[in-house]
């Protein structure tokens, strides 16, 4: 879009400037309300639109899956066409025709996403700059706990209505939230503490099994543990307890690693934690009481979206407060120079220990949630593949940054859903992407950035000023 004559170029630049300016004035509140409008719109009119556009079904994750399927079709088809053209040159006879796939969805999906999500959010956001900023200003004057909870309820409503449309969305959303928790907790160890821990899937497994054993013993009629001990309606009340037990088990495992490995610095933790991962996996495989290699099933259906959302928010909140506290700053000091930190009265050993156990606790909680979303755990899940996945999320998003962890976890989860049609190529594309990120931004996309909720939520414009 580069017009030839200078005046129209000037118009174009001014337009672009104006759009950018207006977009920058929309507060988070405006975007959230716009998103709420969009998901309500989809709830009401989505099915009609699907029919009107003659689509197969509603695009699940913003249409990325359908687009990926089409791209795959074209790549595979293109290969076939190349073969046909090659044969044509070789044999002299043209036998094939270039065809368009029958279920070609991309333009319709894009139109759908534009109409249902993009247009309402953008229009609502830009048209309500003044009232939204006014409301954001009023909210920011309230006690921050109240306003933040208000925002979270709004965010949850958006997610809930969006996920309500299909079971797949709910599943994907819950797994993404769990991935955020895992990534964040690993970032405490690998980013903020600067060690290289490989045992995160192990902590996750400990948490998953710890929490599952509690809920299965108490609330499920199970072959391994016998009849339920407590009536079922108490289950939601005991679920937090089960998760905390899972987290505590994971923390205890972390203690076993931490005691020997924090005597020396460096790569030592990497090795010990790797050995620990294998030991945990092998131990669970040999424990017949929890099902051995066949896994443990029968967890009650407790990890619904509001539960997972609450825990994810709790996790982000605690970890963000932790890393911004004095202890978190001490952790950074230990990472940068342990001797100097020690000289500055930081108790380095205690600091590292606390952070490590803290990270492991949240990994355990995430593992417990994971087990209850899937309602089945298997020791084979928590292997090196999982390790590679979590490490990819942490290093893609960025070290030492809560933002980065959220971005990394969400984007790798989305990417891994989107690349599902490519089957085996999925785990070629994601590693390639990560290698490129590592080469051009060795610490990840958004590294070393503080996450300040108040500055995120604050109004973008003084309500008294002109638009």
């Amino acid at each position, binding site marked *: 879009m580069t017009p030839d004559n200078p005046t129209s170029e000037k118009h174009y630049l001014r337009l672009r400037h104006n759009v950018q300016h207006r977009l920058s004035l929309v507060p988070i509140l405006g975007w959230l309300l716009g998103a709420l409008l969009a998901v309500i719109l989809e709830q009401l009119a989505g099915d009609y639109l699907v029919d009107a556009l003659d689509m197969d079904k509603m695009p699940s994750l913003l249409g990325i899956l359908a687009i990926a399927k089409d791209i795959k079709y074209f790549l595979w088809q293109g290969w076939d066409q190349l073969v046909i053209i090659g044969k044509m040159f070789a044999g002299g006879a043209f036998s094939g025709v270039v065809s368009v796939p029958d279920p070609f969805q991309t333009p319709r999906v894009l139109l759908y996403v534009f109409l249902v999500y993009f247009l309402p959010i953008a229009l609502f956001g830009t048209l309500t700059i003044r009232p939204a900023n006014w409301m954001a200003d009023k909210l920011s004057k309230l006690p921050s706990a109240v306003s933040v909870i208000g925002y979270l309820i709004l965010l949850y409503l958006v997610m809930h209505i969006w996920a309500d449309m299909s079971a797949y969305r709910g599943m994907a959303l819950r797994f993404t939230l769990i991935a955020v928790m895992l990534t964040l907790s690993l970032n405490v160890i690998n980013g903020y503490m*600067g060690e*290289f821990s490989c045992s995160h899937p192990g902590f996750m497994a400990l948490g998953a099994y710890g929490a599952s054993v509690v809920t299965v013993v108490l609330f499920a009629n199970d072959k391994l543990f016998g009849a339920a001990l407590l009536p079922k309606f108490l289950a939601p009340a005991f679920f937090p307890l089960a998760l905390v037990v899972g987290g505590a088990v994971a923390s205890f495992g972390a203690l076993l690693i931490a005691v020997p490995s924090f005597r020396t610095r460096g790569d*030592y933790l990497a090795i010990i934690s790797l050995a620990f991962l294998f*030991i945990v996996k092998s131990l669970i495989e040999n424990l017949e009481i929890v099902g051995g290699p066949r896994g443990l099933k029968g967890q009650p259906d407790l990890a619904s979206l509001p539960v997972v959302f609450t825990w994810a928010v709790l996790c982000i909140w605690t970890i963000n407060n932790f890393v911004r506290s004095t202890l978190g700053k001490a952790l950074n000091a230990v990472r940068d120079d342990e001797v100097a930190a020690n000289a500055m009265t930081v108790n380095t050993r205690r600091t590292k220990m606390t952070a490590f156990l803290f990270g492991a606790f949240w990994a355990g909680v995430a593992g417990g949630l994971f087990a209850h979303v899937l309602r089945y755990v298997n020791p084979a899940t928590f292997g*090196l593949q999982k390790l590679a996945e979590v490490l*990819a999320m942490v290093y893609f998003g960025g070290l030492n940054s809560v933002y980065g962890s959220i971005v990394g976890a969400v984007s790798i989860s989305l990417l891994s859903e989107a690349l599902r049609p490519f089957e085996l190529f999925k785990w070629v594309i994601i590693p390639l992407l990560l290698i490129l990120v*590592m080469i051009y931004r060795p610490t990840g996309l958004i590294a070393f950035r503080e996450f300040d909720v108040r500055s995120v939520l604050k109004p973008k414009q003084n309500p008294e000023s002109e638009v």
Partner: protein
Amino acid sequence: MTLNLQNLLDFQNIIDALQWGSFYALIALGYSMVYSILMLFNFAHGDIFMVGAYIGFGIASLLVGLTVAGSLALPGWVILILTLLGAMCLTSIVGMAVERIGYRPLRDAPRASAAITGLMIGIILEQGNLILLGAKRRSFPEIIESQTFSIGGVDITNIKIMIVGVSLAFMLALHLFIKKNKWGMAMRAMAFDYLVVPLMGVSINAIARMTFAIGSALAAVAGIFFGMAYPVLEPTMGIVYGWKAFVAAILGGRGSIMGACFAGFLIGFIEIFVPLVFPSTLRDLIAYSIILLILVYRPHGFFGEPYSAKLRL
């Protein structure tokens, strides 16, 4: 389950342990050398071992096939030597490519980032193999006819003896190369201080490339021997055996050639002898617990120097 002491002392088991130990030792050498030069874990090395095994499989199948078809008349040992040489050359090219793509651009980056690229390259190699050849297990062709000798009631095959002997010869050759050769001296100097030695006119790129090439060639040898001894190849073998060899490299002492060999054989012995005493499902559990205990009491491994604060993170 009966604990049979006779079993433990059986020479059969000892030779098996030596054979497995030579695989682990040969792979561990690659980890150890890269660590000593670049202070990096080459997490792709296990998959380079897998690639080496598959390249060896390809060459050996080709040569054996041609011999069977009658268009070539090569004795088994010539095929073996050709396979070894060919696979070593090709795998070292793969190793150098890994260094060029994954490690050289990240030489000044945090070490963890390079570890991540290594891990990702390993995944790409494994998945690439799955895409190219499928998940099917391949059986390695019989290059040398297996002959069984019976010495004092103990059955030993010529292949096992050859594997252990040739592996030890390679380890000795590497040791001599590093101690006596000028290039080996450059490697030792680089391991001593990779910041100052380049100022003395030794190219760190050349040394790093050579280190990766040698390590990959040894991994290819291990891969071929693995294929001959246990004639099933699968794409996940790099992960399964590579990580154990990685642990061996650490256990031996980071950057110590001798330590890597010793720890490789130790892991071979643990792997063979633990199932004789305990149920075999506990093998990994007990093996890693022993390793963990050793590391707790000797944090820098058997032959490693106490850890210095030479960190780049």
